[in-house]
């Protein structure tokens, strides 16, 4: 089972070149804020954008969010020097293409961690498999660094120029999404993404479409997704949270299984016409654990917004 210890359902990309977006990012309710130095920063604005990362790392966490910085492997050194400061939770490697590249980024982060007084190994990584070579080398990329926490297709639809089919599905995405989910599970990493359809493109969608994409995405294994607009955050949080109906059903299953197996004489029982085994019951227990972890995460965020002290979970 992939790493499921951290609740990171909504990842809001904020252009580092837009001070007003950076200032308001903590109010959006995102589990993670990504300060972007790549996709949404115009080329001439990049040096100035890098300058202000360090000063904003703690400010964007004011709403209880974690903070990642999205870096460009082509500008790796400049971007990492701008990003790796105390307070940083991780980096998103846009357009990740090879294991060597990930190893190089890992090594650079390590030396910056020791230079700047961060706990060694504390900066995590999410690899963006946004190009064809990146997807082809997905498993090697995923396993190239212990810092790797997650994998995402990011804006692969735009970067690989994948367009809508007559059905409304984005060409090749069903294949790429399932491939990524499988690779991530095999490597013990967390798959991030949502199952977008036409007319959604490049992580842009209405709140309603975002919710639908999150639900479809969760159904094939994604645990959270990137987004671009503040009003996509709530639908992602909702879409990647088990519904009340699911939680109630999971509780009933847990009860039914423990009642039926109490005697220790059987391991498989039928419940509501379905078969239950220990593994299946565990799957439902995971839904309850996820639901509890999300409730804790939300309490933490609420406390942060209200300025109350919060116990570290």
């Amino acid at each position, binding site marked *: 089972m992939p790493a499921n210890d951290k609740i990171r359902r909504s990842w809001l990309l904020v252009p580092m070149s837009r001070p007003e977006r950076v200032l308001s990012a903590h109010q959006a309710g995102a589990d993670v804020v990504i300060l972007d130095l790549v996709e949404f920063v*115009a080329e001439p604005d990049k040096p100035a954008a890098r300058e202000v990362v360090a000063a904003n790392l703690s400010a964007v966490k004011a709403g209880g969010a974690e903070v990642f910085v999205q870096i460009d492997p082509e500008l790796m050194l400049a971007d990492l020097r701008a990003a790796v400061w105390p307070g940083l939770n991780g980096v998103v490697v846009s357009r990740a293409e090879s294991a060597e590249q990930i190893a190089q980024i890992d090594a650079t982060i390590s030396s910056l961690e020791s230079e700047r007084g961060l706990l060694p190994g504390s900066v995590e990584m999410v690899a963006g498999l946004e190009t064809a070579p990146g*997807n*082809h080398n997905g498993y090697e990329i995923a396993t190239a660094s212990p810092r790797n926490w997650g994998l995402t297709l990011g804006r692969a639809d*735009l970067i690989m*120029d994948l367009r809508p*089919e007559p059905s409304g599905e984005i060409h090749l995405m069903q*294949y790429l999404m399932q491939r990524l989910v499988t690779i991530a599970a095999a490597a013990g990493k967390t798959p991030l993404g949502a199952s977008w359809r036409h007319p959604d*493109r490049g992580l*842009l969608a209405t709140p309603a479409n975002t919710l639908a994409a999150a639900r479809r995405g969760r159904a094939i294994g994604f645990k959270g997704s990137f987004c671009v607009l503040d009003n996509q955050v709530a639908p992602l949080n909702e879409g990647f949270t088990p519904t009340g109906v699911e939680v109630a059903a999971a509780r009933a299953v847990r009860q039914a299984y423990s009642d039926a197996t109490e005697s220790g004489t059987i391991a498989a029982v039928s419940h509501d016409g379905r078969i239950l085994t220990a593994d299946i019951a565990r799957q439902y227990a995971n839904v309850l654990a996820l639901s509890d972890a999300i409730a804790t995460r939300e309490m933490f965020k609420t406390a942060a917004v209200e300025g109350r002290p919060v116990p570290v979970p």
Partner: protein
Amino acid sequence: MADHPRRLKRSGLTMPIVTERFINNAWHRGCDFINMDLEDSVPPNLKDVARNLVRQSIPVVNKGGADAVCRINHDLMEADLNAAVWPGLMMVNYPKAEYAHEIRRMDEIITRLEAERGIRPGAIEIGANIETAVGVANAYEIVSASPRIRDFGGASGYDMSRDLGVEMFVGFDQFVYGKGEVELTARALGVEPHAAPFTPNLTGSVSDPDRAFAEADAARRCGFRIGGGLHPNVVEPQNRGFTPTDDEVADAHWVLEQYRLLSRSGDTWIQTEDATGQPRIIDRYEAARAQELLQWRALCEERDREKSEAISRVRAAEEHAE
């Protein structure tokens, strides 16, 4: 292979080279290429006869401006190549490609024949058709095996159905995984992918012009450029379906104009409305698509001009002869 001009392959007819009537009439159909078949449409007892027809048939199929392609037999590769690689041939289609060593062997033979027969080195393309599960498994090594592979696709169709033991004409896509592997391979290695978005086809008709147009149009909208078929009815619909329309050209100019305005603003994207009131996003990706669409349309127009001039020349010469 930047020094080899891109050849358009929107439409193409595959025909048995032993059926003289087909070969002699194909030139005026307006296809981008004509695929002279030595494989499935030629019975085993005629393989030798068929092979001896290729050299003389190349100028016949070329005369209307179509490029000449020859589909060889997987198991008769060396003899077939020897018969097919002559000046005027654009590409050899290799069916049921399964291993990189097959492609490397083909490349060696073609390289030698090019040198012996006065063909520009590297000119002849290899079309490596993936039609079996083994081919899917080895796709990356196959495409890596020769720079003569300039476009790549497959993992669907009759042979794939047979190899997997499934019915071909069903109401859903049975080949999602194999087609995905093959397309990702093409993209990862930087060769042009050819693929078709799935459209349900329960009839299996090879001559329905409306279906041919709908499929070509859907493929073009997904960014694909390569067609081909078995019946003259589908040539014109494929040429049309793979060529951007006037409305799309106007739209591309509009997108590029919006992008010029955007790039002065410091923003990387903007949401706006087009002339029809549709919400549209403008960013560098839309601009790149628009630019590519205009270049592709220009290539299509140039190719159509080339073919119609060639056809007119032949007709004028024929009238003169009478």
